[in-house]
């Protein structure tokens, strides 16, 4: 099956019948504004402000037509712990309070506390971090601090290029040591290092060192006989202060590069962000045994996808078990399968005994629960194992427990008479653990079925989980910038929110009669300004517009002071350049409301010609003098002769495009199907 780029981008007929874009037909425009591509590529076309949080984002042409823009405008931005109960007037009821809530992001806009406490493997130091510090690199930097020292030579006959990441050394007889200072350690400590080595002679060995000079070794040596990249784990059998290389056999010559101590960061505490009546529940999930802590930094890099539970012995235990009893509950979590995992995923179990809330067996196509009394509840489950984030929600209403997977109802369990308790993350039962990544888990001891889609919409958007339905498709989006695609940087902007045209109206993309994306311009002060004045002698202008109302005059182009303008009414047009104003020139036909129009104006050889839907209007007018343009849809500060309608495209050339006009108009009409 052939899929064209155009169809892949949505309804983006950027080219004419011979495959040319507008700017390929007629390059060297002064400015070109559209909601489609005028270049044949996929340039940014608009910067949009959404009304929900006044956030702004650029969109390219494909993003407008594909639904990306609308989806972004409609995003559910309220984080889970700020969500309010639904009332007859909207989501203005009380805050919905969770029983426990863990994440690496802030689950409430008002939460400013730490989200995680981390232990670094290099020295066992522990520190807490905010959500911002997790994402801005502070956490990773701290885990990787301090770094090892510059390699120092004792005994190598030749030693050069020394730094903390490597050196070149050679010996023909005596023993040499190249040692880097690291955090001091004791017998039993484990130090992992990685490096590249080029061996030209000898069999170099690396070990922990008792001293930074000639002292004895602090671990068994790891001997290297061939060049390559190595990651070596050294277990101390003595106290140590450094890590170093010796030459091995004589003669010896080798170069070490990219040396670093590999450090892990593990989670000793995952902070509970939930509150009751505004007071923190503080039911943090903790693990004091470093060997059983899930990783958040692995080999010096932040783990992507949440906390990594190894399936061997990693677990975090709630400070106090969360008794769901036999009441309604709602537990939602963001998980990810770890590479190579073929087992079921069980994000949350009980603190004692073989009890767990939910287990997802993607290979066995089943989902199961185990209640407090040991009863197994098992149902079929055929969601398929996602490669990305998994949104798994377990919801109990009365005696029915429903599993939602990626927000889709997957299966239900009959939980009559059963009760459940939560106590561990990552552990299923005393000898069984779950291997997975966990980004977020929120527990409610109440029925949240009315709020599920709102909660899941926010989570789905934050974690980029495809297919999660948007909750509230009623948000407005406004155009802050209509980008110039000509390459001249003459972007059209509107810095005042109340003057910005709408592009998403109550959650729906604004379109003109032709069904293609448009901006709704309300007249009055709604317009765009250019950062610089465009001064034209000859010029050509092309405009795709639909009118909601037609008053005595509608400004198409104007300068900032109102001195120059090109305007029209339903039956005539007029230009004013450098104070010289023509009379209103009658059209052959009448422009009416409700229809899409392609208006063209071409001034060359001191004559202005006007075209409606490709048809030349018989009456032309003599016009000379520089024509200045710095506003679209408005002349100066005039608020009555402005566009009340829909704009889709506006292209300006600093030249007489009489020769190209038919081809340009044909391209535009091919896109918008106007006439």
């Amino acid at each position, binding site marked *: 099956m052939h899929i064209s780029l155009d169809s892949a981008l949505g309804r983006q007929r950027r080219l004419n019948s011979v495959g040319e874009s507008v700017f390929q037909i007629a390059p060297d425009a002064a400015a070109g504004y559209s909601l489609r591509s005028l270049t044949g590529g996929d340039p940014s076309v608009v910067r949009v402000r959404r009304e929900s949080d006044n956030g702004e984002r650029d969109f390219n042409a494909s993003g407008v037509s594909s639904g990306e823009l609308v989806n972004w405008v409609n995003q559910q931005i309220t984080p889970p712990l700020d969500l309010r109960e639904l009332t007859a007037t909207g989501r203005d009821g009380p805050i919905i309070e969770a029983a426990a809530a863990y994440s690496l992001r802030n689950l409430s806009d008002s939460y400013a506390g730490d989200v995680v406490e981390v232990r670094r493997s290099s020295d066992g130091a522990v520190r807490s971090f905010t959500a911002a510090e997790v994402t801005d690199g502070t956490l990773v930097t701290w885990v990787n601090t301090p770094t090892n020292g510059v390699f120092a030579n004792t005994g190598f006959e030749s030693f050069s290029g020394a730094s903390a990441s490597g050196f070149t050394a050679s010996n023909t007889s005596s023993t040499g040591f190249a040692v880097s200072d690291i955090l001091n350690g004791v017998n039993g400590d484990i130090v992992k290092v990685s490096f590249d080595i080029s061996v030209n002679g000898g069999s170099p060995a690396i070990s922990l060192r008792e001293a930074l000079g000639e002292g004895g070794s602090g671990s068994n040596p790891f001997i290297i006989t061939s060049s390559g990249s190595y990651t070596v784990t050294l277990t101390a059998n003595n106290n140590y202060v450094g890590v170093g290389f010796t030459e091995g056999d004589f003669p010896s010559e080798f170069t070490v590069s990219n040396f670093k101590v590999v450090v892990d960061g593990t989670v000793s505490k995952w902070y509970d962000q939930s509150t009751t009546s505004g007071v923190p529940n503080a039911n943090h999930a903790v693990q004091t045994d470093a060997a059983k802590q899930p990783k958040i930094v692995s080999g010096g890099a932040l783990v992507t996808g949440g906390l990594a539970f190894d399936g061997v012995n990693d677990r975090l235990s709630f400070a106090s078990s969360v008794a769901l009893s036999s009441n309604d509950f709602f537990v939602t979590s963001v998980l990810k399968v770890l590479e190579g995992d073929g087992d079921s995923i069980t994000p949350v179990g009980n603190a004692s005994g073989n009890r767990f809330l939910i287990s997802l067996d993607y290979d066995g196509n089943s989902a199961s629960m185990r209640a407090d009394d040991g009863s197994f509840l098992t149902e079929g489950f055929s969601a398929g194992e996602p490669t990305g984030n998994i949104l798994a929600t377990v919801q109990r209403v009365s005696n029915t427990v429903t599993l939602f997977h990626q927000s889709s109802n997957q299966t239900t369990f009959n939980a009559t008479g059963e009760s459940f308790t939560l106590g561990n993350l990552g552990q299923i039962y005393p000898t069984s653990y779950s291997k997975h990544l966990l980004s977020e888990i929120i527990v409610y001891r109440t029925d949240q079925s009315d709020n599920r889609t709102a909660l899941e919409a926010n989570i789905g958007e934050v974690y980029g989980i495809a297919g999660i339905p948007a909750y509230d498709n009623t948000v407005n989006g406004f155009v802050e910038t209509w980008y110039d695609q000509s390459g001249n940087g003459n972007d059209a902007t509107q*810095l*005042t929110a109340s003057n910005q045209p709408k592009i998403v109206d109550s959650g729906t993309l604004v379109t003109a009669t032709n069904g293609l994306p448009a901006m709704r311009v309300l007249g009055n002060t709604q317009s765009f300004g250019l950062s610089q004045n465009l001064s034209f002698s000859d010029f050509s202008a092309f405009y795709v517009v639909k009118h909601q109302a037609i008053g005595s005059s509608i400004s198409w182009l104007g300068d900032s002071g109102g001195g120059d303008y090109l305007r029209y009414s339903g039956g005539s047009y007029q230009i004013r350049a450098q104070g010289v104003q023509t009379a*209103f020139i009658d059209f052959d036909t009448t422009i009416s409301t409700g229809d899409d129009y392609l208006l063209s104006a071409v001034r060359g050889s001191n004559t202005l010609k006007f075209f409606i839907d490709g048809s030349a209007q018989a009456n032309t007018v003599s016009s000379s003098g520089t024509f200045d343009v710095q506003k679209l849809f408005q002349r100066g500060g005039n608020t*009555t002769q402005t566009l009340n309608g829909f704009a889709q495209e506006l292209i300006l050339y600093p030249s007489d495009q009489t020769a190209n006009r038919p081809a340009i108009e044909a391209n535009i009409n091919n896109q918008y199907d106007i006439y």
Partner: protein
Amino acid sequence: MLYLIYDTKEAAIDRADEEGKYIGFDYWIEDNGEGTRWLTYPNETIDYKWALDVTHYELDSQEQADTVPSYVPLPEPPEEAI
């Protein structure tokens, strides 16, 4: 509608800037001078002062007392005769 009347355009824009910062428009939070800056922009009045639409502004008690429900805009210059 509610308006505050300022003697100068600069004073009116200062108040519009303050509100834009309070709302958290992109111009202020991105610190790059791009994006939406104001909620409303002042218009010149018939007596050459500047009216700022503050209907949706967070106003202090003094500002609330100073608001006016309407103003007379500076008239458009008359159309030129051809």
